[in-house]
C-alpha cells in the first residue's frame, strides 16, 4: 500500500487525545481526577494504527490506552466518567483508567497486567477464525510487555496456529521507571519476531502518516495471510509513567530531543506546509477539541458514583 495522504482528521484525533490527557493531568493535579498513565508524545503511534483498522477488527489494549480508545471513536465523556469511577463510564466506573474495554467498539479484554493482553490476543484471534468471523485482532503492548514470557508464548502460538494478530509494540523507551536499555539488550523489539518466522517492521512512531501507512500494509497482510505480523512503533513517552511523576530519573537531553519530535506539532507543520490546512483551520480544530473535552469533563462530573450496595454484583454471570 502506498503512503496515505496527510489528513487533517488525524491531526484532530491527536489533538483530542492530547487535550483529553491534559485535562486528566490538570484534574489530577487539582485532586479531582485520579492519576493515569498518559500517552503524551505517543499520539501518532496510537492514532496511526487505529485508523488503519476496519470496523470488524478487534482491539486489545493496556494501561496507556487513551489514544487507542479515542481514535476508535470512544466518547471522551464516557471515558472520563470511567476514569473518574462514575456510573456513566464505559464499565460503570469499575475499571477506572486501567482496564477500559468498550465492546460496542470492538475494544475487548483490556488488561493492565502488563503482558496479559499478549496472552489473551491469541484466544480472541482463535475465536475469530473458528467462528468464521471477519476481522483481525490488533494487540497493543509496550516494550516492557515484550519482556514478559507471555510475549514468547503468544508469538509462538500465533505463528504455529496461524492466528490473525497484528501485534503492535509501542516501543516508547520506558517500562515505568526503567529505561528500555536496562531491560533489553538491543534497541528494537521487532528483532525478536524473526525467531518465530513472524514478519516485522519498525516505523517512526512520531510520524502519523508513516504509522498509518505501515499499519495499513501490516493489517492487509494479516487479513490476507491470516497470519500474525509485528509492527513496532518507535516512539517516546514524554510525560511520566503515572501522574504525578517528576521524571527526575529521565535523561534531560534524551527527553528534549524527543520532545522536539512531538508528533502533533510536527504533523501540524506538515499539513500547513503542504497547504492541506490553514492556520485558521488548525486553530479551529484545536478549539473544537477543547470544547469537546470541556463538555466531556462536565458530563463526567455530573455522572454519579455507583452505589456501594452494588459492590459485589456482576462478579458472576
Amino acid at each position, binding site marked *: 500500500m502506498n503512503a496515505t495522504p496527510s489528513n487533517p482528521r488525524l491531526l484532530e484525533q491527536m489533538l483530542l487525545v492530547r487535550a483529553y490527557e491534559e485535562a486528566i493531568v490538570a484534574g489530577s493535579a487539582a485532586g479531582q481526577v485520579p492519576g493515569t498513565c498518559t500517552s503524551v508524545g505517543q499520539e501518532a503511534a496510537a492514532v496511526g494504527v487505529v485508523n488503519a483498522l476496519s470496523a470488524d477488527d*478487534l482491539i486489545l489494549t493496556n494501561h496507556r490506552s487513551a489514544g487507542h480508545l479515542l481514535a476508535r471513536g470512544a466518547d471522551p465523556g464516557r471515558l472520563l466518567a470511567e476514569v473518574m469511577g462514575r456510573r456513566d*463510564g*464505559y*464499565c*460503570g*466506573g*469499575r*475499571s477506572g483508567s486501567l*482496564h477500559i*474495554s*468498550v*465492546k460496542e467498539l470492538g475494544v*475487548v*479484554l*483490556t*488488561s493492565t*497486567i502488563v*503482558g*496479559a493482553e*499478549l*496472552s*489473551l*490476543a*491469541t*484466544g*480472541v*484471534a*482463535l*475465536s*475469530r477464525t*473458528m*467462528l468464521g*468471523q471477519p476481522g483481525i485482532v490488533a494487540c497493543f503492548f509496550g516494550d516492557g510487555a515484550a519482556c514478559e*514470557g*507471555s510475549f514468547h*508464548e*503468544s508469538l*509462538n*502460538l500465533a505463528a*504455529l*496456529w496461524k492466528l490473525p494478530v497484528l501485534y503492535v509494540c509501542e516501543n516508547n523507551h520506558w517500562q515505568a521507571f526503567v529505561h528500555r536499555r536496562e531491560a533489553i539488550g538491543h534497541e528494537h523489539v521487532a528483532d525478536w519476531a524473526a525467531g518465530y518466522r513472524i514478519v516485522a517492521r519498525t516505523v517512526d512512531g512520531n510520524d502519523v502518516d508513516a504509522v498509518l501507512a505501515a499499519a495499513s500494509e501490516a493489517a492487509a497482510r494479516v487479513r490476507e495471510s491470516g497470519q500474525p505480523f509485528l509492527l513496532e512503533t518507535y516512539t517516546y513517552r514524554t510525560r511520566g509513567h503515572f501522574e504525578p511523576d517528576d521524571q527526575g530519573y529521565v535523561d534531560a537531553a534524551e527527553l528534549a530531543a524527543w520532545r522536539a519530535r512531538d508528533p502533533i506539532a510536527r504533523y501540524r507543520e506538515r499539513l500547513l506546509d503542504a497547504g492541506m490546512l490553514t492556520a485558521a483551520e488548525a486553530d479551529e480544530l484545536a478549539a473544537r477539541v477543547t470544547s469537546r473535552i470541556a463538555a466531556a469533563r462536565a458530563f463526567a462530573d455530573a455522572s454519579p458514583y455507583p452505589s456501594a450496595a452494588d459492590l459485589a454484583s*456482576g*462478579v*458472576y*454471570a
Partner: protein
Amino acid sequence: MPTLTLHDAVGAALAEEMRRDGSVLVFGEGVATKRHDLLTEFGALRVRNTPLAEGIIAGTAVGAAGTGLRPVIDLLFAPFLCYAMDELVNSAGKLRYLSGGQFSFPLVTLAMTGAGWGVGAQHNHNLEAWFVHSPGLKVVMPSNPADAKGLLKAAIRDDNPVLFFLDIGLLYQPGEVPEQEAVVPLGQAAVAREGRDVTLVSYGKTVQHCLQAADSLAAAGIAAEVIDLRSLKPLDTGIVLASVTRTGRLLVVHEANRLCGVGAETAAVVAEEAFAALKAPIVRLGGPDAPVAASFPLEQAFVPRPEAIVSAAERLCRHHSA
C-alpha cells in the same frame, strides 16, 4: 448403568458437550494425543495439542471465552496452574466485573491433584483453596465418576470460569455413570450417607475415607453423616449448616493443607452460623503444612486415613458425653 473410570467419565462429558454445542473446544499439552477418540470425532480444530506453555493455553482460553467460544483446557497437574495464575485469576476471574459486565468467560480448566502417583510436590499439591479465595471463579472437585461427568457438563454450560480438579487417586477407579444427560448442578453438595451423631464434610478422595470411617463408627454405635461438597465454590453451606444443626458436631476432612483451606472456611461458617447447635469443638483433618514427598509411605501418610477420621469422630462424640 455403564461402568466408567473417572477419566473416561470426563471423556464422555467432553464428547457429549462437544456434540451438543459447536462452540466447545478442548486443548492442552497432549490432549489430542491422549483423547484420540475426541480428535477422531471432532477434528483437529476442536481438539488441539499445544506447545508446553500453560500461560498461553490459559490466556488463549480466556480470550476465546470472552469472544464466543467455550474452551475446556487441560493443564495436567495442579502445580502447573502456577504458570497460569495471572490468566485465570487476574483475567478470567476479574475482567467480567471490571468491564462492567460487558464480557463473560465460559471456560473450564481441568487439573489433576492429590496423592496417587508418587511423583512429589511439584506434581502433587492440592491448591483448590486458592481459587475459592479468588473472586469470579467457580471450583469443582468430584469424588466419583458419575459426579465427574455430571459436574463437568454443568461446568461447560456455565457462563463463568470453572476450575475442575480431578483427584489422581480416583482417576482409574471404576464407578457407575448414567448414560443420559444427568447434569449435576454446580454449588450443590450431596449427602453421601445420613447420620445423626456427627457430620463429616469432605470432597475428593477423602469422601471414600469418610464413608469407610462411617462404617467403622456405625459398628461402634456412632451414626456419622457424610457430606460430599462436590463444588467448593459456590460452597453449599446450607447443607452443611442443616446437618450440623442436627448432629451438633463437625469434622472436616481433606487432603489439602489445613491452613486457609476449604476446611477452615467450612469450620468458620459453622462457628458463625450454627454456633448454638455445636456440642463439641470443630475438628479439621487435613494435609500437613509440608510439600508432598515422592516416597510412597510419606505420600500415603499425607492423606487423612479412615482410622484418623474414626478416632477424631469418636473424640468429638465423647466430648458431648463428658
